[in-house]
């Protein structure tokens, strides 16, 4: 709320802006260091731990939390849930920014980022899951960009171009769901090749299915979480339709998230049973696994259901935050915490503070761009010239 009043007064020195400014300056210096001194100067990566926070958080969490775009557009355009239409644009925007930032972050992580197009233009390593991830992320970023352009074109007043893109909606949505299915699952499948390094409680031949299903949960929860924040800071930008539909969106998405979480919980148990890994549950890693499964899958599933039954919007919103944290925990478990569990603790990885700062820097950049766009373009409201025209 204070944000809102201050932005009306055109004051730039809000606490968030000061924080963001400091992060941007530190981020800039670390960036210079990274690209002049190499990965070794800013990271704790090692020969045993080649993937750190930038893969575990920026790539794995970034991609799954950006799933709101494909989930929402599929619900509205394919499953015909038109009552949620006002949720599509913010979700597409978050998705687009999320993927753009993932690609941005990858430039920090790979050794020679200027060669990122090589797998497509020089030699195609089609036996690699990473090739699939790369190809789908690149294509899906393009799809999200096109899906997002109507907002920009409306802002710029280019009516003809806007109408042309809107006509492609169905095609783009289907394409987006196909690509999302592929790369969300492939991110999990990346770890299929390392059964000797990932703890058996997390390693499963179902990893791709787990990643895909949990990305739907992440997408639904992120839409809810992000709409909570938007309500807090950008309520003045929302039109009547958006505000009116919001409770319906919250209840509907909460219900869907509860259902998918129940399914996810079931298949996690199925995986545990198929690999016959029950005996690991009594170990330290087992306790950690149970915390993830019960505290961040079963509990939010239950809380969402209660929230929907009681029409308790507040509970649903807090549950969305819990679920998002659960997805982050799951991705960090697979990429960092349960990965290389066979190594002695002296050889394990913990991120360098500069790695953490770069991740914070990227999130802050995302928030700033999001804020710029929702205050300028028709995201949370319908452009008056195109009302009801979709």
């Amino acid at each position: 709320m204070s944000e809102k009043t201050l932005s009306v007064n055109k004051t730039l020195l809000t606490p968030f802006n000061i924080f963001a400014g400091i992060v941007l300056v530190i981020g800039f210096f670390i960036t210079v260091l990274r690209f002049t001194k190499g990965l070794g100067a800013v990271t704790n990566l090692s020969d045993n731990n080649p993937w750190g926070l930038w893969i575990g958080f920026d790539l794995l969490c970034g991609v799954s939390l950006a799933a709101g775009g494909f989930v929402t557009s599929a619900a509205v355009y394919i499953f015909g849930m038109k009552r949620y239409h006002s949720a599509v644009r913010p979700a597409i925007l978050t998705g687009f920014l999320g993927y753009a930032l993932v690609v941005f972050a990858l430039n920090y992580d790979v050794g020679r980022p200027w060669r990122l197009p090589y797998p497509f233009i020089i030699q195609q390593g089609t036996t690699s899951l990473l090739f699939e991830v790369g190809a789908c992320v690149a294509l899906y970023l393009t799809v999200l960009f096109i899906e997002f352009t109507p907002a920009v074109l409306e802002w710029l007043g280019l009516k003809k171009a806007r109408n042309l893109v809107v006509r492609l909606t169905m095609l783009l949505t289907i394409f987006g769901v196909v690509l999302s299915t592929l790369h969300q699952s492939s991110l999990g499948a990346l770890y299929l090749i390392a059964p000797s390094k990932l703890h058996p409680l997390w390693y499963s031949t179902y990893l791709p299915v787990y990643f895909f299903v949990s990305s739907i949960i992440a997408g639904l929860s992120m839409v809810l979480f992000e709409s909570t924040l938007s309500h807090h800071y950008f309520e003045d930008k929302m039109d009547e339709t958006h505000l009116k539909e919001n409770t319906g969106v919250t209840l509907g998405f909460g219900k869907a998230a509860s259902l998918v979480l129940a399914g996810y919980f079931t298949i996690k148990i199925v995986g545990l049973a198929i690999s016959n890994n029950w005996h690991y549950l009594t170990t330290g890693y087992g306790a950690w696994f149970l915390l993830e499964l019960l505290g961040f899958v079963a509990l939010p599933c239950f809380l969402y259901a209660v929230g929907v039954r009681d029409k308790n919007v507040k509970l649903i919103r807090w549950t969305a935050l819990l679920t998002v944290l659960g997805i982050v925990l799951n991705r960090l478990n697979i990429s960092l915490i349960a990965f290389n569990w066979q190594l002695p603790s002296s050889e394990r990885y913990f991120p360098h503070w500069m790695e953490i700062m770069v991740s914070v820097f990227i999130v802050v950049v995302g928030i700033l761009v999001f804020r710029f766009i929702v205050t300028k373009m028709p995201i949370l409201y319908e452009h008056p010239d195109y009302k009801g025209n979709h």
Partner: protein
Amino acid sequence: MSLTRRRFLGWIGAAGASTVLGSSADASSTVHFKGYADSFAILHDITLCVGCRACETACNKVNELPPPDLPFKDLTVLNQKRRTTAKAFTVVNRFENAKTGSLSPAVFVKKQCNHCLEPACASACFVKAFKKTPEGAVSYDHSVCVGCRYCMVACPFEIPSYEYDNAFSPRVMKCTMCHPRILQGQLPGCVEACPKEAISFGKRKDILNIARERIKKHPERYLDHIYGETEMGGTSWLYISGVPFEQIGMREDLGITPAPELTSGALGAVPIVVGLWPVLLTGIYAISQRKEKVSAEEQALAVAEAVEKTQALAKQKLTGELEKAKKDALKDKDSAIKQAVKKALDDAAAAIVKQEASNV
């Protein structure tokens, strides 16, 4: 959000199809790749190694690597367990002897790239920088490498290392099996340097026979296991030992599945998803559209029916009222006539009475 039967069926279909991703079926996997015929392999007889580090010295020289922090003659480095690094493609580690339970005699094991028959690194590389050569070496081409380091994640033997401190041209570093020297007809650096013949080079099938023969001749000296014959689908470095491999830093739980097979199921699902998802999604779209159309039609029909009913009712009511009015009118008319007649009769009677009175 109401859950209709149609929508539910749509979801069930989606859930069913997604389980395809979990399967590892691969139509072509019945063929087992046993490596290139006539490819080379190297046997490391662990029982013969004395830990002199001559192989490390030779490797450093042949590959023109930077000098080590401590000279190769300094054997105190053996006090720590080491792994391969960007500056050392091979390392020798010292282990306690399980038979005596002490360091006398200690067991020495050389570690370097095992040059898998079906390498995890090559399967994982998205720019095909790794290649299994017909000679047996797994080669690496730094001129295309992007530096994603997925090869390092994939390698079950924890071999590839990275030049993290190189900002502009970092490379993945690992043993090359001296592939350039093999092509020139020379022995790999380490093999040539070993004073104890603890490493032997030859065709993989011959090397396997040598290993088998040694085990057969000296069952008291060796365990009946050639490490690398089947591990991860087989490797071009093979090991024989007098103590269990698990106790000398070599994992025995890797299994015999070649790395590429671990991901073939997930990769196989890609064309299936690409082929079926659009059909499924268009189907769900069509169903939801049709549902909307039908409900719109039903609504229109219901409205029409309601209108008709109301109209009929109104008509009925109107006719009723009309009739009633008619009836009322008739009644009124009757009563009016009756009244008029009565009045006329009364008048007439009165007139008669009046006349009679006047006549009287």
